[in-house]
């Protein structure tokens, strides 16, 4: 029972990090049907910026803010320079371009920072242990769960409750119809892309504890990010949340309970889900 609670908490914290990083990817991939393998690079960029700043003596939360903004700016820049010419091209061109970006970031980061794990220390007041009644538990993980839950609620409200959200949902379900009723889908996309990259940067920073920062980050975690998009369904906010949390908990539970066969179990499940529902659990309506 106690083990179960710990597994659940660990899994939740991991799942929240995955959710924060990949929610932007899900929405942008659903919106523009553009394959983006370089999303992890933005999470990594945010993480490295924050790590350098904290290393230079900046407080954690200030570095968190700067790193998030930096990832967003970087996202905006690459949307204009790299992604815009890609929309008209085929999936293959998109795969190649974004795969190339991953290679270039790996080489660039190695050049500047070396191959070692870049440490991003968490603030002292969050790195202690909390008494759960039956055992001690790292406070930082509880903090992660809280932040993730708050963000999810905020994003849910943004998407379900605001005018921006209504436009976004319309554009994901049927981009051509959305254009026809006067929604500027391209601008919407740019904004969403920037937001998604900023969120990825944010997740990369606060999640550095669970997904350590190193040059191969974008390649190493590419598969979990893509799994969340594919399983949740392109463009589905709800899908990405459910998929990320499930993935986090299952992966953690697997590693705890059946370490030998955990990856098979996990990928086996993903396999079955995708075979039964090739468009994910909650596909965008237009994707059909």
């Amino acid at each position: 029972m106690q083990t179960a609670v710990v597994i659940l908490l660990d899994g939740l914290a991991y799942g929240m990090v995955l959710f924060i990083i990949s929610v932007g990817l899900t929405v942008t991939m659903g919106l523009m049907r553009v394959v983006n393998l370089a999303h992890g690079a933005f999470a990594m960029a945010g993480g490295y910026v924050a790590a350098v700043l904290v290393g230079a003596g900046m407080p954690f939360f200030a570095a968190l803010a700067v790193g998030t903004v930096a990832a967003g700016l970087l996202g905006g820049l690459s949307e204009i320079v790299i992604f815009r010419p890609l929309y008209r091209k085929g999936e293959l061109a998109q795969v190649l371009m974004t795969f190339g970006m991953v290679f270039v970031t790996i080489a660039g980061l190695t050049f500047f920072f070396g191959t070692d794990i870049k440490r991003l220390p968490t603030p002292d007041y969050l790195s202690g242990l909390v008494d759960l009644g039956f055992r001690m538990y790292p406070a930082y993980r509880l903090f992660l769960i809280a932040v993730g839950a708050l963000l999810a609620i905020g994003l849910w409200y943004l998407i379900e409750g605001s005018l921006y959200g209504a436009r976004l949902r319309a554009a994901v379900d049927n981009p051509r119809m959305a254009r026809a009723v006067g929604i500027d889908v391209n601008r919407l996309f740019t904004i969403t892309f920037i937001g998604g990259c900023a969120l990825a940067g944010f997740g990369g920073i606060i999640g550095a504890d669970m997904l350590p920062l190193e040059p191969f980050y974008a390649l190493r975690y590419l598969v979990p990010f893509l799994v969340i998009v594919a399983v949740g369904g392109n463009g589905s906010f709800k899908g990405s949340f459910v998929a990320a949390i499930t993935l986090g908990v299952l992966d953690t539970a697997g590693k705890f309970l059946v370490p030998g066969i955990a990856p098979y179990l996990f990928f086996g499940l993903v396999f079955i889900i995708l075979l039964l529902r090739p468009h994910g659990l909650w596909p965008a309506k237009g994707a059909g």
Partner: protein
Amino acid sequence: MKPADNPALADDRVSPLWHAVPWLLAIAFYFMAAGYHSLGTSILVYILLTLSLDLALGYAGIITLGHAAFFGFGAYAAALFAIHVYSEPVTGIIVATVATGIFAALTGMLILHTQGVTLLMLTLAISILLAEWANRAHTITGGEDGLRVTMGYVLGLFRFDLWGRVAYLYALAVLFVWFLAAWSIVHSPFGRSLDGIRQSPARMRAIGTPVWWRLVAIYALSGAMAGTAGALSAQTTRFVGLNTLHVLISGIAVVMLVLGGTKRLYGAFIGATIYVVVQDIAAKINPFYWMFVIGGLLMATVMFLEGGLMEVLDIVRRRFRQLFARVKS
């Protein structure tokens, strides 16, 4: 239709003598490049891998990042066969090819009714699962340590020598056989139907093409070919390790293919040669430079040169023709 729309037809317009050029160059390399035969062999292995990807990704439009699974499968199959059963290379390579083809057919049947990101994901997942298994099945694959292989004489006659001369010729012969096969596949009605499936699966289905079966067939063929490439690499280097299954291999294959140009078979020759040479030079300076160079090349190809380097050759050739025409008149 412009000839550029259908590179397969564009190839046919070229004087048949041109087809001898790459093979003559390969043979010339054998006589001239003493000391570089093992580099030459690895180029040939990569050409074969790229050629296999051209069938699946270029012609049939199957978006995959999982060809490392077939490359590695073939490599381990060849190594295990040589260690436990029979060490003659030609038998080994046939066994490895057939085994990989069956593996590719089975996985293809599972995943080929999906498309786009989902398909990409599934191909990635299969190759990662296989790599994970190879890492864990220490007693069979040697895990992190890999497997060392002692090969017998080719056909019982030629011994793999220390300088890799026999290995080079052996690889060249295997590549030539597969190239002929690929050439006839691409120019058969079956190959043309793949062209159609790439452009519009729905329309091909509407005119009665069994799309799924065609895709499974070409995926299995392509997988078998990639398996041969893996087997060649295991036999000629007499070693197989986990890196043959790494996702990076899939990425590299895509890079080489796109660099050379998709849907034109010879693109694989140019792409793989340039890749291996650049990597060899760049890696001597700093191992991470080549990742930068390769990533940059990929991005540049997509941005400026969608047809790959073969298109440059096409443009040059067309310019020359115009020039000749003008000189004549």
